[in-house]
C-alpha cells in the first residue's frame, strides 16, 4: 500500500545581525540623489549612530567628545552635524585613533606625501563597507557588469601591502577580472598596451591609475607609435599626483592626450576621490562632477577660524563618514574645496564636491595648527 506523506513547509525568515540599515543601503541601494527631507534625516541618523558607537568604543574619540562637551543627543537637525567633533590628521599620524571592534585590524597607511604617514585601522566590516561604497558608485555611474576588465596601474594585493592607495586599487579584483601592471616594482607599459590591443571587444576595459602613471603610459604609447582603442572603455584616475606633484599636468591637457591616443570619449574619463581617513570612494558622473553619496556628510570650514563656509565657498573639506566602524570617520582633510548642490548637467541632482588644491605652505602650517586646536580643545 502506498502511503502518501504530507510534509508541511518549514519557513524561517532571517535578517543578518550585521546587516544594518546603512549596510542595506550600501549593498542594495541605488542613487536617487534628490536631497529630500527623508534622505537628510536618514543621513543624520546614520551619523548619529556612528558617533554614538565611536564615543563608547573609542577611548580617544570619547575623550575628544567630552572635551567638546558633545553628545549625540545634540544632533536634532541637519545643521547640528557641524557639532560633531573632528579628528585631525595629526591624531592619525600619532597612531592614537582606533575604535574597539574586537577584531583583527588592517593598519592602512597613507603615502606620506606631506612627510609623515597616517595610520588608519580597518576591520573586516569597515573594509566590506568600503567595497560597498565602490559598488554603489559603480551601480550609479558605470552600471554593474561582469563583462568588464580592470586594467590597474598598480600592484596586486600581495604587493600592495598596507599602503592604502595601492591596496584600494587592488580591491578591484573582488568585483571584476583584473590585471595589474605594476609588479615586482616595475610598471609594465608594453604589457598594458598589448592587453588593450588584444582586448575582447565585448568586454568593457577600464583603465585605472594615478594620473602620473597614466601620463607615463601615454608617453610610452606615443613614443612607440601605439594607439589602442578604448572607445567603449573608461579611464579612471585615482590618487592624485602625490610625490610627483611637480610634474603635474592640468586635467584638460591629460584628457586631450587620452582622447587623442586612446580614443576614449571625454565623458568616460573620470576622476575618483578617496583618502586613507575616508572610508568612501567618491565618483564622477559622465559630466565629470564628483557626486557626494547619500550617507556622507561634507562640511566646508573656513581655514582662518574653522567656521562653516557658505555653499560654494572655498574652505577646508571635512567629512562625516558613518561607514567606518574601527575608527571614527569624522575627519579633517588636507584639501581645500567647495560643496554645491542642485541639478548636475548629467541629469542627477544632489550634492557635488570640487577639490581645488592641497592646503600648502604657510597656509598649511597655520591651518594644520588650527585644525589640531579645533579638534582637541573643543573648538
Amino acid at each position, binding site marked *: 500500500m502506498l502511503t*502518501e*506523506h*504530507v*510534509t*508541511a*513547509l*518549514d*519557513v*524561517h*525568515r*532571517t*535578517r*543578518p*545581525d*550585521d*546587516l544594518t540599515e546603512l*549596510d*542595506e543601503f550600501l*549593498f*542594495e541601494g541605488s542613487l536617487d540623489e534628490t536631497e529630500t527631507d527623508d534622505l537628510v534625516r536618514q543621513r543624520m541618523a546614520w551619523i548619529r549612530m556612528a558617533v554614538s558607537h565611536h564615543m563608547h568604543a573609542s577611548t580617544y574619540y570619547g575623550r575628544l567628545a567630552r572635551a567638546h562637551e558633545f553628545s549625540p543627543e545634540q544632533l536634532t537637525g541637519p545643521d547640528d552635524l557641524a557639532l560633531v567633533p573632528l579628528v585631525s590628521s595629526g591624531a592619525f599620524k600619532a597612531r592614537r585613533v582606533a575604535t574597539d571592534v574586537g577584531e*583583527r585590524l*588592517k593598519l592602512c597607511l597613507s603615502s606620506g606625501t606631506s612627510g609623515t604617514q597616517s595610520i588608519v585601522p580597518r576591520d*573586516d566590516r569597515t*573594509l*566590506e563597507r568600503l*567595497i*560597498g561604497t565602490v*559598488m554603489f558608485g559603480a551601480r550609479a555611474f558605470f552600471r*554593474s*557588469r*561582469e*563583462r568588464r576588465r580592470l586594467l590597474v596601474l598598480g600592484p*596586486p*594585493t600581495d604587493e600592495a601591502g598596507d599602503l592604502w592607495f595601492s591596496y584600494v586599487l587592488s*580591491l578591484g*579584483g*573582488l568585483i571584476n*577580472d*583584473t590585471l595589474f601592471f605594476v609588479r615586482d616594482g616595475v610598471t609594465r607599459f608594453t604589457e598594458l598596451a598589448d592587453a588593450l590591443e588584444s582586448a575582447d571587444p565585448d568586454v568593457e576595459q577600464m583603465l585605472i591609475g594615478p594620473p602620473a602613471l597614466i601620463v607615463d603610459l601615454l608617453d610610452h604609447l606615443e613614443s612607440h607609435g601605439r594607439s589602442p582603442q578604448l572607445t567603449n572603455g573608461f579611464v579612471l584616475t585615482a590618487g592624485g599626483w602625490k610625490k610627483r606633484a611637480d610634474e603635474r599636468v592640468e586635467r584638460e591637457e591629460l584628457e586631450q592626450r587620452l582622447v587623442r591616443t586612446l580614443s576614449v570619449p571625454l565623458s568616460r574619463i573620470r576622476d575618483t576621490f578617496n583618502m586613507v581617513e575616508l572610508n568612501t570612494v567618491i565618483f564622477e558622473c559622465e559630466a565629470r562632477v564628483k557626486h557626494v553619496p547619500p550617507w556622507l556628510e561634507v562640511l566646508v570650514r573656513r581655514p582662518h577660524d574653522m567656521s562653516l563656509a557658505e555653499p560654494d565657498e572655498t574652505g577646508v573639506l571635512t567629512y562625516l563618514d558613518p561607514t567606518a566602524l574601527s575608527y571614527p570617520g569624522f575627519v579633517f582633510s588636507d584639501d581645500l574645496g567647495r560643496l554645491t548642490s542642485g541639478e548636475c548637467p548629467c541629469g542627477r541632482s544632489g550634492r557635488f564636491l570640487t577639490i581645488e588644491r592641497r592646503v600648502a605652505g604657510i597656509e598649511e602650517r597655520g591651518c594644520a595648527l588650527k585644525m589640531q586646536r579645533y579638534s582637541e580643545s573643543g573648538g
Partner: protein
Amino acid sequence: MASRPFDERVARRVEVETPQGNKLVGVVAEPKERPPRGVVVMSPGYERCIHHYAVPSCYLTRVGYVTFRFDHTNHVGHSDGEIFDLTMSSMADDLRSALKEASLLAGDLPLHLVASSLSARAAIRVLSQASSPLVERLMLLLPVVDVRRTLAAAAGADVVALWERGEIDRYLVSEHVVSAAFARDLIEEGYGGFEATQNELRGITVPVTAVSTQADEWVALDEVLATMDADSAAAPRHLVVIEGSSHGIGHNPPALRALMEVLVSGTTDQANEEMKHLTFSEILSIVRAERAWASVGYQMLRTEQEVHS
C-alpha cells in the same frame, strides 16, 4: 596566523564528455587534512561560472566536503558551446552528466546538489525525472521557479511572447544575447510557470532546502513559497528567507554570510558548530586566485597538485 583556505584543500580540473558529445569542464576541490564527509555538486546560475562559487566551495571544503563545480555548456565559462545557444534542456543535460560524474567520485559517500538561480529549475526537472534518488539532499539557492517571469524581468520584456509572435529570433538577457531557442525550449519542454515547477518538486523524494531573498527583483517570493509549500511532498521541505538582500546576494557580505550558514547547516544538518566565516583577506585571496585560474581555463590545475594562494 590566519588560516589560508588554499592550504586546506587540493583542487584539480576535470573534463566530462556529455552524451551530447560536449565537453563539460569542472573543478573538484577536496579537503586536504581530513577524510571527506560527502560530495557536493554546485550548479551555477545564469552568467555564472565555476569561479563565482569559489567562496561557497571553500566553506564546504572547510567542513569536510568535496565540491564539484562546473561550467554549463552553451553558456559562459570553459565548457563547450556559446551562451547564445543556451536552453533549459541543455542545462538539465549538463546536470545529469555532472551528477553521474560526481556519483563516481562519491562512491559510498553522500552526494548533495546545490543549484543556483536558473539552474535550480533545471535541477528540479532532473531530480523529478530520476527513477531513483540521484542525491541525498537538494539545496536551491535563490531558485528561479517561473522561468518565463524571471526571463522577462532580466530581459525587460516578455521574451516568450515576442518569440511566439515571431518578432524576435534572439534577445539580450542581462549581458548576453540568447537565441529564441531558449524560449522555444521553454514552451516545448514544459518549463513554463511555477505550477509546473511545483508539480515536479512534489515528486522529489529527498529533503529540499531553498534559500530566497526578501527583495529578489527577478523571482517572486510568493511563488517560491507556493512552489515549496506543496502538499503531499514526499520529504521535508525548508525555506529560508534572507531579509535585506536581493538576487545578487554576492555583493551583500552580511547576507552572503547568512547564506553560507544555511549552506553549511543544510548540508551538514548540524548547528554550524564547525562553521568559521572566511575573513575579508581570505575572500580576497580566494577570489583573486580563482579568477586567475579561470583566465587560463584551470589548466594549472590539470594535474593533481597542491594549490597555494
